């Protein structure tokens, strides 16, 4: 499974969610499919996408937060999985694209290439629903199930270690940040009407 195809498969569902991605290939590929104002790309601070998603999910229980994470980033903040599991927001779906490498810095293998099982780690941390998927069909099925379940879910999607040729896009970091915050503010105002 290519991550770009996985993102394409999830894309229609992401329109009604609030999406946080990690840096690098995930951010660039999602933007290549089509940026939306409800997408926030955390272009640095590896490991903190899931923590930022937790902050969003706690602050806005009325929206569904989707965190599009990666194996390298999750491995930098394994403790964050225990915090996610501790508060287990029902409105958060954590998708981890696991290509078993740090692709954007040359493809060095991560510990998932030697057997570390991120879905197993998430389950052991206390995340109520966890799964590992290897096909687009399994990914879309488990993602739909996670949205319907209203229970914190970690989906580890095993993907090929291939990505885009570059990572810098024409969307500036601050433009993205302010547009995203405005989207959240306006969605809340609409709901209040």
């Amino acid at each position, binding site marked *: 499974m290519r991550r770009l195809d996985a993102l394409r498969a999830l894309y229609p569902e992401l329109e009604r969610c609030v999406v946080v991605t990690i840096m690098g290939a995930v951010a660039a590929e999602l933007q290549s499919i089509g940026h939306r104002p409800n997408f926030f790309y955390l272009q640095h601070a590896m490991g*903190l996408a899931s923590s930022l998603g937790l*902050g*969003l999910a*706690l*602050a806005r229980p009325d929206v569904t937060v989707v965190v599009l994470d990666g194996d390298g980033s999750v491995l930098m903040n394994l*403790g964050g999985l225990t915090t996610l599991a501790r508060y287990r927001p029902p409105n958060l779906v954590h998708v981890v694209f696991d290509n078993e490498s740090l692709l954007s810095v040359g493809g060095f293998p991560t510990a998932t290439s030697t057997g570390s099982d991120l879905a197993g780690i998430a389950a052991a941390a206390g995340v109520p629903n966890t799964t590992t998927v290897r096909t687009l069909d399994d990914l879309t099925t488990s993602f739909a199930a996670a949205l319907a379940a209203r229970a914190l879910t970690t989906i580890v999607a095993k993907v090929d270690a291939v990505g885009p040729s570059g990572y810098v896009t024409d969307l500036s970091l*601050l433009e993205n940040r302010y547009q995203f915050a405005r989207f959240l503010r306006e969605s*809340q105002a609409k709901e209040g009407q």
Partner: protein
Amino acid sequence: MEAVSNGDAQVDSVLPADGGRPARRASRYTVDAFCAMRPRVTFPRMPVSVASSSLIYDCLKRQGVRIVSALPETWLVHLIRMADDDPEMTLVRLAKEEEGVGISAGAHLAGVKSAMLMQNHGFLASVNGIVSCAQLYRIPLLMLISHRGEFGERDPWQTEGGGVTEHVLDALRIPRARLESPDHVATRIAKAQTLAYSASRPVALLLCRDLMWEE
């Protein structure tokens, strides 16, 4: 084997039922039994100021803070308990302080005010998140940092952090103020938060020994 059995007996007699929870059942080879066999440890009295902690907590409430992330340390015990006891506050207990940067960033983007409670060593452990999330994306962080390792510090392991904390804050261009007495608390926290929002940047309040420690 006999010693372990004695340990079991001790567990029942030494550890009473805790606040309405069922009494802990001990069996052989459990951690409880092992702990019961160890000499009783007497902890020194922890004279952390309840009055100063209340002043700080009340100020956070007045400033509209609704999410507090925290990693426990001695000087913060009352503040964390106050957040935990308050139904209007969401307390997020962290595994590592840097997570709190992400939580505050998410809360801010969603329009909710937050604060971070941590020791200065926790601040030092959070520097990458502060730089590459909060500063890069212009997120106002209200960081309340217990400033261990200054004059009066008895714990040798706190002393290096105490010597570098203010220098690191300065190197990061994070505006900071020291809270050293009760009359500093309300005005400096309010002003720090005002600057955090007008500048869209992190700010730091150092909770100092003379404010937090009563001896």
